């Protein structure tokens, strides 16, 4: 068999096998157990966010730092060091679905000493498709941004319907025909302590 034909065959096999592969569902984390959580946020390992519009992807998993509030509710969180800038800017926080789970987020702003300045609650987030989104303007004095899971909503289910269109091209003798069709899907997600975040900082236009 000629090398280019072999390559083509391998390519088709890869596509075929990947199509047959089952996606692994990562279950949501609705209980934080076996952890001793601090009352304060640990900012020593805060990730830098650059003021350049580039996305920073972060996973919040069972090993992420945790905190327990006065009501004994625990959260997993990720901390970020905000860029210092004279120019006004904002940070986008996106919680992306992972399997059937979606980290239910809230945002806490801290000063340079790690003291809490304000909290942006879970219900300020809105949906971008199946992801949760928040844009937050950074105020003077705010130095750290914490994205923490919201214990009050973790475990709740949310169902959304997504309708879409797609085109498939078929060969009909010597010509190719594009066939357009629609589809509908209802996706149910469970709010989780764990998940995937995308953080972006950009100047205000």
């Amino acid at each position, binding site marked *: 068999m000629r090398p280019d034909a072999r390559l083509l065959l391998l390519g088709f096999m890869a596509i075929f096998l990947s199509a047959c592969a089952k996606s692994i569902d990562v279950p949501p984390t609705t209980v934080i157990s076996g952890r001793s959580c601090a009352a304060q946020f640990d900012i020593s390992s805060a990730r830098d966010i650059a003021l350049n519009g580039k996305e920073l992807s972060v996973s919040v998993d069972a090993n992420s730092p945790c905190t327990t509030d006065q009501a004994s509710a625990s959260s997993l969180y990720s901390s970020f060091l905000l860029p210092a800038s004279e120019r006004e800017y*904002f940070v*986008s926080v996106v919680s992306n679905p992972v399997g059937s789970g979606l980290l239910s987020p809230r945002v806490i702003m801290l000063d340079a000493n790690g003291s809490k300045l*304000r909290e942006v609650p879970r*219900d*300020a987030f*809105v*949906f*971008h*498709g199946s992801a949760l*989104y*928040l*844009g*937050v*303007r950074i*105020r003077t004095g705010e130095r750290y941004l914490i994205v923490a899971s919201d214990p009050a909503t973790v475990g709740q289910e949310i*169902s*959304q*319907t*997504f*309708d*879409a*269109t*797609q*085109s498939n091209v078929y060969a009909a003798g010597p010509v190719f*025909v*594009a*066939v*357009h*069709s*629609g*589809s*509908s899907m*209802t996706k149910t997600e469970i709010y989780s302590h764990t998940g995937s975040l995308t953080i972006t900082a950009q100047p*205000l*236009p």
Partner: protein
Amino acid sequence: MRVLRYSLILCAVLAVASCATPEIPYDRAAENVKTIGIIEPGLPDGPTVVLASTVGQSFGLVGALVDAGLQAARDSKFQGALDDASYSERERFVASVKIALEMRGYVVVPVSATRAKATAFMTKYPPKADANVDGYLDLVVGNYGYVSAGIGDSTPYRPSMSVRVKLVRADDAKVLMEDAVVYNPVGPAIAGARAVTISPNPVYSFKDFDTLMGDRADAVKGLQDSVDQTAQTISTLLK
């Protein structure tokens, strides 16, 4: 012209949800906006009842012309149903946004102003002294009506609405918030787009156009629900 209008309708939703609309978040505590003037929104001429994927799309210009004709017929019939029900999308939308913002603690007043284009934000806002407000809420509705992703029972007609929204300071027209809200986004380019999306209410779905027209009361309720949910989401952006 029909082909152009048909294309523009489909593009309205995609354009609103595309990266062309910036998302500028609002900081309520930092701005002293207590009274908001809602400028009369820009709206399209009428509702649209869109079948987003059709057989005609595979047949070039001829197919597009056929689709445009079918689209125009659906739009006209649906407009007739709204007229019979004395339903005004404009009135419902303004009232709903007013209520949603008042529940957030704002004082809201309607503001009359001439909009150069129904499909665009205001180019110039009224002087603050004229309206005595702290900020102007500028709303542009890209489309409203119903949409089906395709032919078949699994893709029913559901309510659809897209809005671009901007809050500007009355003093100097500085943009305090800007975003896009799409109720029931349908199409290939919505995922990851910079728009707030609202999943359609499963209560209001109609398996085909005849069923939609056969249940006009619920068809209107579906529109009203899409307006109310859109208004609530706009108020969340100004929370």
